[in-house]
């Protein structure tokens, strides 16, 4: 069986393809296309052009997956898409044009997916996973009884917006301010200090881009072996990114779609390394997609998928817990499973260990649909129709 998981982030559309037999599941392919959604925003809405770009990229990706003989494809999106105000309009257009249904992944599920995908690193000494997203950040201990997750409700794009002035890349003062803010948030969340973690596993596409930049900067051979960064050399890279004359060229060459977030990511990583006093830095090539696939194949996670044989979507879209749908569920007498606390919930004691489901969660024979009301086919068609009508005009 051939499966795929595609992920829409703020800067790209990426997909993994996996083959599963009776014994194992093996990742056989990866693809990524840059999609700088930030440039296609109208305020907090994704513009018509942005929706078109997304739909086009997804259609092309779907066609390639079909050529490769993929049987099922799950489409997921994390915080970047969750934060746009016309989310439903966009997902309706995506569904109408491609048949793909977007499964929204909340911060804590993202962290858990990262955790599952990177369990192979649990043998590393005092390892901690770090996933830096545009609108959220997840830090999660690996292995032993130190397992822990902390989800921060701010991300790299928030740092960029908060601290960067006229230039897209912050100057030295702005980077310093950014670092101070990040440190204060880490302090507030009571993030462990030295001697707790000695190996930092960096997860996610932005961290992957940081590594690409690191190899370019240090002229490291990327052909084989683990992706490891030297802390001293990484520090030099951060310095170059903050004040080097050629920093924009370096970004353009290695991660043009990450231009808004690459320096905030470097600042956050530097602060974390200093806080943990970690000397080992590994950049993982496994993340939320791999973890999600593993969980859905095990039946531990749910979500709608595209069935290539049937030519349509099956199952209900995954919708994360929000304050709104939480209240609605509470009214209806439903209880939600909880994985971990948010960094902003300071009054509650920190939960350690793998997140557990509440015992009194109602047993369900089918995956439960949460949050947003289910869209009817008619509304999806209306969205597609409106996109088609508008596409006749320039811009």
């Amino acid at each position, binding site marked *: 069986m051939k499966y795929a998981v595609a992920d829409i982030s703020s800067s790209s559309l990426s997909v993994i393809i996996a083959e599963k037999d009776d014994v194992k599941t093996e990742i056989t392919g990866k693809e990524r296309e840059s999609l700088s959604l930030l*440039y296609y925003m109208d305020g907090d809405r994704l513009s018509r052009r942005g929706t078109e770009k997304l739909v086009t990229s997804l259609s092309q990706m779907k066609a390639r997956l079909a050529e490769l003989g993929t049987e099922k494809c799950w489409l997921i999106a994390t915080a970047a898409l969750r934060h746009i105000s016309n989310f439903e309009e966009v997902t309706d257009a995506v569904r109408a044009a491609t048949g793909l249904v977007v499964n929204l992944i909340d911060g804590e599920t993202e962290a858990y997916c990262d955790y599952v995908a990177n369990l192979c690193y649990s043998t590393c000494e005092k390892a901690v996973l770090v996933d830096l997203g545009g609108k959220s950040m997840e830090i999660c201990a690996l292995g032993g009884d130190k397992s822990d997750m902390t989800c921060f409700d701010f991300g790299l794009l928030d740092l960029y917006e908060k601290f960067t002035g*006229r*230039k897209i890349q912050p100057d030295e003062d702005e980077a310093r301010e950014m670092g101070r803010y990040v440190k204060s948030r880490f302090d507030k969340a009571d993030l462990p200090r030295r001697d707790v973690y000695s190996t930092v596993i960096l997860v996610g596409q932005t961290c992957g881009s940081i590594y690409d930049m690191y190899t370019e900067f240090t002229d490291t051979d990327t052909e084989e072996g683990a992706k490891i960064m030297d802390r001293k050399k990484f520090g030099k890279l951060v310095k170059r990114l903050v004040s080097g*004359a*050629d920093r924009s060229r370096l*970004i353009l060459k290695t991660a043009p779609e990450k231009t808004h977030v690459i320096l905030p990511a470097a600042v956050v990583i530097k602060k974390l390394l200093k806080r943990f006093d970690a000397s080992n830095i590994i950049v993982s090539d496994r993340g939320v997609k791999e973890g999600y696939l593993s969980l859905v194949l095990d039946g531990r996670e749910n979500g709608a998928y595209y069935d290539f044989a049937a030519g349509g979507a099956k199952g209900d879209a995954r919708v994360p817990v929000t304050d709104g749908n939480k209240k609605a569920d509470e009214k209806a007498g439903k209880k939600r499973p909880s994985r971990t606390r948010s960094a902003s919930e300071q009054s509650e004691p920190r939960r350690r260990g793998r997140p557990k489901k509440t015992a009194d969660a109602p047993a369900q024979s089918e995956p439960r649909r949460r949050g947003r009301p289910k869209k009817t086919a008619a509304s999806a068609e209306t969205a597609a129709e409106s996109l088609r009508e508008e596409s006749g005009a*320039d811009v």
Partner: protein
Amino acid sequence: MKIGILTSGGDCAGLNAVIRSIGLYCLHNIPGAEIVGIPDGYGGLIRGDGFRMQENDFEDILDRGGTVLGTSRQPFKRMTVEENGESRLEKMCDNYKKMGLDCLFTLGGAGTHKTAALLSFEGCNVIGLPKTIDNDIYGTDVTFGFQTAVEVVTDSIDRIKTTVASHRRTMLVEIMGNKAGWLTLHAGIAAGADMIIIPEIPFDLDAVCEFVADGRRGRQYNVIAVAEGATLAEEAAYKKSERAFARQYMGETTVTRHLAEVIGERTGTETRYTVLGYLQRGGTPCAFDRLLCSRLGGVAARLAKEGRFGVTAAVVGGKITFNALSDIAGKYKLVDPDGPTVRFAKEIGIGLGTK
């Protein structure tokens, strides 16, 4: 709003039509708009040169070839290299501020777009416009200047054909296009070339000679359209610098002359070659390009009015729209060897230089 316009890289037909469209749109639709022409491309911005353009500066330039602003080539590689303590990029950013610009339109090809992306990363409000006869800018179906060049090359091949037919020769026509073979492919098909050789499909010398010797098209003459970036199959694995070194050693910059000699020797046919060169860039834009340039310029100016920067105007599915510079900078749109145009060419018996 103070709006700068510059044209960078090699010239092509339609630059003035875009300048005119941007200027007129801004003057008519953006209250208090001031247009600043920056001479000689990025060179002018590095020096901090600029002059105010009035409405009458845009009169009578719609059909004029070249660029009224002048242009120059500023290698992308040199942009971030420090010279006397300051890089060209820093100088451009400083001058952008000193000139009080709120927005900068950069009309150019792939290299220009890369530099535009750098300027955008450093905080300048940049909007790109896709200019090149190579048609190789990623994310746009067509670039302005391309269609005019196709017409010029097609007309040139038509003229060459009459001579070739009269003398029963094989003629190689070298056409611009170092990385991308769009111009050669389109003009070659339009002019009825017997064989088309493009960089995306490295050619086999034996296959080319066999094709000519066979007189596969049933004629006693052959016209072969060769892109200047065409490479031998044996050279395909070489790096660009290695290939350039090998060519330099042979006293050549392109493969066309060598190919003509080999065809002549091996097939016994009288073989000549001609390089169209700068003919392909110059002259008045065709009606298609005039309309395209006017629409592209208008839409780009509207993007400025809306405050959408860090983007480049594009044609997608016949519609004028935009792409983020960060999504397209550094990428090229090349001919797909398995794509529909190549497939069609093969289907009607045009040789592609392969077995």
